[in-house]
């Protein structure tokens, strides 16, 4: 077991593992608030943990809780969750080579933060190790976090007071910054984000993100375009 673990983490150094731990702790705290909120909406104690294991997608799980908690039907909640998770379709194509050895486990672990952390690595071996180590860690922290939050329930204090709600977007931003240093990618992404912001007041929670996609019409294939530089996370 120890040998297999070290062969998996092989290309990653201590600072990579520290960053992965930080991402995991941040996601674990979001998991605790997910568990607490879901139980607070009247769901049974095992529901957050069950959803975290079978879905493993934070935004769609919050949405499911929100729709059913507000009196909506389970069918509506599932459809809304599937719409939000449609963003995972391009993730799979972008990371197909990375998960080639274990496509089923790899597909299961394609969480936003894992995708962003893996795409920030240029070398294929490092990218694969980053993907699986971060993915397995997040699976553990997210499912345990939602269980702990469900058990603690309403005793969980307001995490916004510690600014933790700002940490989640900050993690994503830090992870995609290497890709954003490419001016063409950055311009398309900025136009997409403006489109998504315009959609916020009209689209259900999480669906606004998909409204960023028409910005890809501005994208042009450039033969021999440079790969994004390696993220410096020391």
């Amino acid at each position, binding site marked *: 077991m120890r040998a297999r673990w070290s062969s998996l983490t092989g290309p990653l150094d201590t600072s990579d593992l520290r*960053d992965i731990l930080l991402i995991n702790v941040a996601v674990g705290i979001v998991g605790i608030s997910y568990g607490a909120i879901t139980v607070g909406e009247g769901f049974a104690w095992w529901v957050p943990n069950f959803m975290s294991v079978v879905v493993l997608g934070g935004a769609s799980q919050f949405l499911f809780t929100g729709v059913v908690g507000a009196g909506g039907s389970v069918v509506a909640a599932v459809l809304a969750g*599937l719409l939000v998770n449609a963003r995972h379709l391009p993730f799979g194509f972008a990371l197909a080579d990375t998960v080639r050895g274990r496509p089923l486990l790899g597909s299961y672990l394609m969480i936003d933060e894992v995708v962003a952390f893996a795409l920030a690595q240029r070398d294929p071996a490092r990218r694969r190790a980053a993907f699986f180590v971060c993915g397995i860690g997040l699976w553990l922290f997210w499912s345990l976090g939602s269980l702990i939050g469900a058990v603690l329930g309403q005793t969980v204090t307001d995490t916004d007071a510690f600014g933790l709600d700002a940490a989640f*977007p900050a993690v994503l*931003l830090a992870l995609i910054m290497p*890709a954003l240093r490419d001016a063409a*990618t950055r311009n398309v992404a900025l136009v997409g984000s403006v489109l998504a912001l315009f959609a916020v007041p009209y689209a259900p929670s999480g669906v606004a993100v998909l409204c960023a996609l028409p910005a890809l019409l501005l994208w042009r294939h450039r033969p021999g375009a440079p790969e994004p530089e390696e993220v410096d996370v020391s």
Partner: protein
Amino acid sequence: MISTTAIVAGGLVLGSGTFAYRAAGPVLQSRVRVSLPVQQLMSTAATVLLLALCVTSALADGQEWSDPARPAGVLVAGLLAWRRAPFVVIVLAAAATAAGLRLIGV
């Protein structure tokens, strides 16, 4: 409250659908050769979606706009990330900025 069966069935359908989205790329990749331009387009699409997720979660909760403290924290994180600050510093600075602004009542 909705029945246990409905919750379990709903969770399994949502989970299967989500898995299908994620697995489509890896499964198709082993059967048909996805061209390099398409792979590059998908990488760009991933970045576009992740930035949109970052920006909307920084500025809004569902359809409501957030308080100014959270986007201020994320802005600080963005500047630090652009200046190649260490990852730990970026994330902690975002949380500290938002918490500090709330402490002084912004």
